[in-house]
């Protein structure tokens, strides 16, 4: 009798626990410690802003969005565990992911679990392929960005002796390969190629070799905190070459950590508020909302997370509820205008959002549009 009562009680508890979570669960995975911290902060802020606006306006299809944020410590192995936590938490969709090595690892989990994953912070071309049926990526890939910066280096920037400093992770190596191949097509070979680890602090041995090669341009395919350290140390050693790079440099903390050394750096970025009025308006709102705390606002990273959630994911959730397959198909068929992107944005058949990369230059204390004159 006691056992019967106990099992009935357990069943009742279980049943009661079920419908209580009628909210939509949106998972965010990013590096909030380790080398990706500066980027993870922006991603989280973008998510918080978008979800707050959506929930204040009534949610998606009447349901509020429950935001679940996990930190993967910018480490691929931990990223897999973090993603597994999101899956076992029962998230309906994941929007986030920073770091090509982490995303390449953690997307296996979401693919196996059949959860749509909109990636906002990893640029390795292998992430969006035909066989990744549940994954989408909204930022431009290295195969486009590295090619773009190579063309800008040779064309408008008129560089002839280009050295390459790349991180030895998937992001750095992927960029280097595309960049060097693009240079070759333009008839140039890099004068020196050196690699480093994301967590390295001292770059003297690599910079010594680069200085010996006398470059007029140095491509840095890395992220914070390595990139600003490289720039500072390079200038300390008397290297005057201009720096170029791709998305890894697109973080305001680059300028904070290397205020003098980063001046004049030209890079392809994910978001430039000067592109259109909507972008500027959003950036101002965002900075106002997130200023004044210990975590400074990071518009570049937040912009994609915000746009992905507000304009791509939320409408699909509103229309299709939590049916993952329907949400995925809805995302795949997305066509619309996103601020700071000219024209209409849509995903190609590998799940990659098609768009033109934006070039910016570090001038003063911000990224400004780069005029290729």
């Amino acid at each position, binding site marked *: 009798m006691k056992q019967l009562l106990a099992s009935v009680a357990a069943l009742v508890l279980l049943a009661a626990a079920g419908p209580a979570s009628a909210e939509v669960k949106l998972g965010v995975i990013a590096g*909030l*410690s*380790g080398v990706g*911290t*500066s980027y993870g*902060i922006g991603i989280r802020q973008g998510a918080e802003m978008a979800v707050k606006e959506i929930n204040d306006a009534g949610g998606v299809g009447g349901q509020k969005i429950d935001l679940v944020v996990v930190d993967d410590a910018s480490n691929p192995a931990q990223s897999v565990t973090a993603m597994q936590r999101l899956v076992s938490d029962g998230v309906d969709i994941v929007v986030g992911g920073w770091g090509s090595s982490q995303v390449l690892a953690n997307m296996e989990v979401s693919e196996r679990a059949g959860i749509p994953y909109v990636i906002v912070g990893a640029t390795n071309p292998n992430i969006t392929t035909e066989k990744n049926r549940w994954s989408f990526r909204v930022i431009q890939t290295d195969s486009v960005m590295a090619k773009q910066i190579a063309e800008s280096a040779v064309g408008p920037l008129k560089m002839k002796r280009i050295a390459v400093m790349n991180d*030895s992770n998937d992001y750095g190596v992927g960029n280097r390969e595309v960049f060097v191949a693009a240079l070759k097509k333009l008839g140039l070979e890099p004068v020196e190629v050196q*690699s*480093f*680890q994301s*967590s*390295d*602090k*001292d770059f*003297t*041995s*690599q910079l*010594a*070799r680069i200085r010996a090669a006398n470059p007029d341009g140095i491509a840095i395919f890395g992220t*914070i*905190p390595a990139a*600003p*350290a490289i720039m500072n140390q390079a200038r*300390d*050693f*008397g290297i005057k070459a201009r720096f170029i790079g791709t998305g890894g440099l697109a973080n305001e*903390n680059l300028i*904070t*950590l290397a205020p003098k050394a980063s001046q004049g750096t030209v890079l392809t970025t994910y978001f430039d508020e000067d592109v259109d009025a909507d972008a500027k308006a959003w950036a101002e709102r965002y900075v106002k909302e997130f200023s004044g705390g*210990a*975590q*400074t606002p990071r518009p570049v990273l937040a912009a994609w997370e915000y746009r992905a959630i507000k304009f791509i994911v939320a409408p699909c959730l509103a229309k299709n509820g939590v049916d993952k397959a329907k949400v995925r198909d809805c995302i795949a068929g997305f066509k619309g205008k996103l601020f700071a992107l000219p024209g209409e944005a849509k995903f190609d058949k590998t799940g990659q959002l098609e768009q033109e990369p934006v070039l910016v230059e570090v001038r003063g204390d911000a990224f400004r549009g780069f005029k290729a004159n």
Partner: protein
Amino acid sequence: MLAQILVGGVATGCIYAIVGLGFTLVYRSMRMVNFAQGQIFMAGTFLGLVIADHFKLPAVPLILVVGAAAFVIGLIVEKLIFRRLYHNHEVFVVGSIGLGIVLTNAIRIFFPEPVPFPKVFGTGIVTFGGAFFQISYVWVVGLTVLLVLGLHVLFAYTKIGRGLRAVAADTEMAGAVGVDVRKSIAQTFGLSFAVAAIAGVLIGPLYFVSFDMGDMIGLKAFSAAVFGGINSIPGTIMGGVIIGLLENLAGGYVSSSYKDLVAFVILLLTLLVRPNGLLGSETPVKV
């Protein structure tokens, strides 16, 4: 390039040596390892950052102020926390790991991202035998030498130092001959905190500081202490410098991916082959 690598190796090695000293000092008195040393070092850097930012102190006063503040904090932490953990080595170790985690996350609340440290040692670049390095490196090496000399004088010639050595050698007897054992232990902790914090101020201007910078350095400093002999001060210094040099050589000539491996391979080999370290000595137990 060799000169560059050697200079970098000596400087990094000195940092491992100084942080390793923290381990050694505590181990000598307590026969226990305080695994929060790396995080204390990191907290010391942030203490230095806050003081330097608010009071704009130049190098030498900054180091003295941070060292003194850390000493006092060490006394307080010993009284509040470590004193309750002495009775059992395992409890002490786990408790110290916990302290490390608390420190890391406390700092993280205020400093979630890497931040630059003011260049209190100036921005000059020194050339020496083909190597270029920031003037901070000279301070690091110089201060390591001063610190070692200072500690030597403390332990060999002052009453307090002799008391600390007595407590380290035989706590009961030291108490029996009148040494205030409680105070000595507290002072040892204070000293280990001060030493780690000073290392933090030295390394601050060289690289950016972040809340997770203490983890790796703490582990490598531990390897340095074990390698050199965890109950020997000169041993720890030597261990630190050797690991720093080998690490940089491996990074320069083999691959920068394997740099971190060096310290841990050395730790493993030491524990397997010569657990007392290079200059450490087995403490004889009289039966």
